[in-house]
């Protein structure tokens, strides 16, 4: 068995190990995020959140995961056939790809693509296809409405993200995430580009269908939106995908605006940069959870107006100003 390993090129082993770590991280992040969200939701509402399973409910999310795996996959009649089962997979699989380029710390990065940023933004838009196919194929008026809404929402919020990210690229004129983070060693880009950060963050919340823009799965209007008919593991795949997209959004925001792994050196030696990175990301996730438990839901046409009338004009103006300033 060892001889077989020696024959394989080292690069291939490195990729296999990295893939395994990334998949493990995706599931770990989903459980941690889910636990954090339910605990914070409880505390925001002056209650305790999950307390029963494990110490202070720590085992609640893994146990939920097992329960969901054990649940029966109900299939309503004349449902869209293979597409009905394909959409959770489409939601789940591309979720791990952006992790290849996210620089957790100077050397903890799978590959440093020089088009890393473009690659991530391309991967993020996979979610829309999955949500649309899921909603459309479950043969239920509510999910069809949810699917339509999610397509319109993601398209109209993709543009502000691109424009705000472009203003960063103008400064660093490189798409590679590592160089962007290295550029921020002296000062973080959020000080230079606060408006771009705000636009990116708000559009990020809308992109991942999170409240106050959670129209595709509006509980009080569309019962459960696009994943009404999904149960068991299919439903949990959509949940894991959603939590991971939130993590990617926050990680991207940290890399672009909050200076990746830069921070006061901590006593953990060379892991301190990775810890800084995770701390910043989870702080941004706290803000996203905070938004969810404070605001009512926006109506559908207001959502569109907000993007086309406010975010896009502001991001264009911001882009223009950065261009002028940078070219001076």
């Amino acid at each position, binding site marked *: 068995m060892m001889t077989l390993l020696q024959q394989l090129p080292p690069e291939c082993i490195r990729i296999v190990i990295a893939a395994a770590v990334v998949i493990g991280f995706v599931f770990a992040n989903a459980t941690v995020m889910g636990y954090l969200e339910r605990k914070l939701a409880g505390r925001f*509402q002056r209650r305790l959140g999950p307390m029963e399973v494990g110490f202070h409910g720590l085992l609640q999310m893994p146990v939920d995961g097992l329960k969901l795996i054990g649940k029966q996959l109900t299939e309503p009649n004349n449902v869209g056939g293979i597409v009905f089962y394909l959409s959770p997979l489409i939601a789940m699989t591309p979720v791990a790809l952006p992790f290849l380029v996210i620089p957790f710390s100077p050397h903890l990065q799978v590959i440093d693509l020089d088009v890393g940023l473009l690659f991530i933004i391309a991967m993020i838009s996979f979610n829309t296809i999955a949500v649309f196919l899921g909603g459309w194929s479950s043969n239920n008026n509510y999910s069809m409405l949810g699917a339509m809404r999610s397509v319109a929402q993601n398209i109209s919020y993709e543009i502000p993200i691109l424009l705000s990210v472009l203003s960063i690229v103008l400064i660093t004129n490189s798409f590679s995430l590592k160089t962007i983070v290295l550029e921020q060693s002296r000062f973080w880009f959020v000080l230079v580009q606060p408006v771009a950060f705000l636009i990116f963050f708000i559009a990020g919340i809308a992109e991942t269908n999170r409240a106050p823009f959670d129209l595709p799965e509006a509980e009080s209007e569309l019962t459960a939106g696009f994943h009404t008919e999904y149960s068991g593991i299919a439903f949990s795949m959509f949940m894991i995908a959603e939590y991971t997209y939130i993590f990617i959004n926050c990680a991207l925001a940290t890399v672009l605006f909050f200076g990746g792994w830069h921070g006061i050196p901590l006593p953990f030696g060379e892991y301190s940069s990775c810890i800084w990175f995770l701390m910043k990301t989870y702080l941004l996730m706290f803000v996203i959870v905070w938004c969810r438990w404070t605001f009512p839901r*926006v109506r559908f046409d207001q959502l569109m107006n907000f993007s086309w009338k406010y975010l896009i004009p502001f991001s264009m103006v911001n882009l223009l100003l950065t261009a002028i300033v940078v070219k001076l």
Partner: protein
Amino acid sequence: MQAGKKNKPIHYRYFLNMGPQHPSTHGVLRVVIGMYGEYVLSIEPIIGYGHRMHEKMGESRPWQAFLPNTARMDYACALPHQHAYVRAIERMTGVAVPERAEYLRVITTELNRVVSHLLWLGAFLLDLGAFTPILYTFDDREHILDILENVTGSRLTHCYFRAGGVVQDVDDSFEPAVRACIKRMRSRFEMYDKLVTKNIIFIKRTKDIGIIDRDMAVRYGVTGPVLRGSGIAHDIRKAEPYSVYPELDFDVPTGQNGDCYDRYLVRVEEMRQSLRIIEQALERMPGGDVRTKTPKKLNLPPGDVTSTTEGARGDVTYYVAGDGTETPYRLKVRSPCFSNLSLLEELCEDMLLADLIATMGSLDLVIPEVDR
């Protein structure tokens, strides 16, 4: 508002079945909505899922047996129903009610109104997508429900009023508890103002949505906070004063243009007014017994009577026809939600689905009261 799509060819329309199990129908109501894309073309509320034929129960048993039923129709605000029924019986049989009992009735009814408006506030915001305020309103409700549980014996389905007074007097822990509760409640209002009234998303979701004008109110018999939201100061406690309300000073809040936002403001202001009423009633409440002795067998004389009180949702009217025996010959309950719901078909044409949910939430529907 948005141009409707009514002139679209029919085959574009699809039907969305909202209910009978649906998160925002507040009870077992089914609404069949003809939709064109996101726009609502036609609405048909289908009621009757929670129908128990209360009126037949009233006709087949002695009138005392109907008292628990009055609390099972509008369980969110049961006491005005009971007050109306008991006043109808007192009108027919001429039973006198001691002053202290009337004050106790007013205090517990106003506490019940605050509890009902808090429940509505939480549920309305939940319909609009805000998950947290409902927990805050339930936290406030618990304080008042503990007081009501101690006085009337149960948290929602109170059976506290009798013909000629109330069941039992309050113990001396009642008054300090109510005063503390009023003080606490007043401090909570400006928290709700910050979280909800000034919130831009909430304003955008409720301003100029579901506007009810006076003519529609007359044609459908809309009463209560829904009517007052359209600027008509009609409150039975002021229009046709009963019990000890003439001696209490309070004003009737009204809105300007009758949209969901005004109905919200009216109900929050009404909670403040109820607290004022309770305070005054506590000071003016005399001593004395709380119930007049009524003969064992109290027959209802021939003839019929209607009696009206101001429920949390509007004009609660009981029509009782007696025929000389102890059993009412005919008992009709006019529930405000029945009329408030009937205008949904005309009000919600050409609306977005999200606005339909907001409007239905602002009508404060309790479906068991509609089905009876």
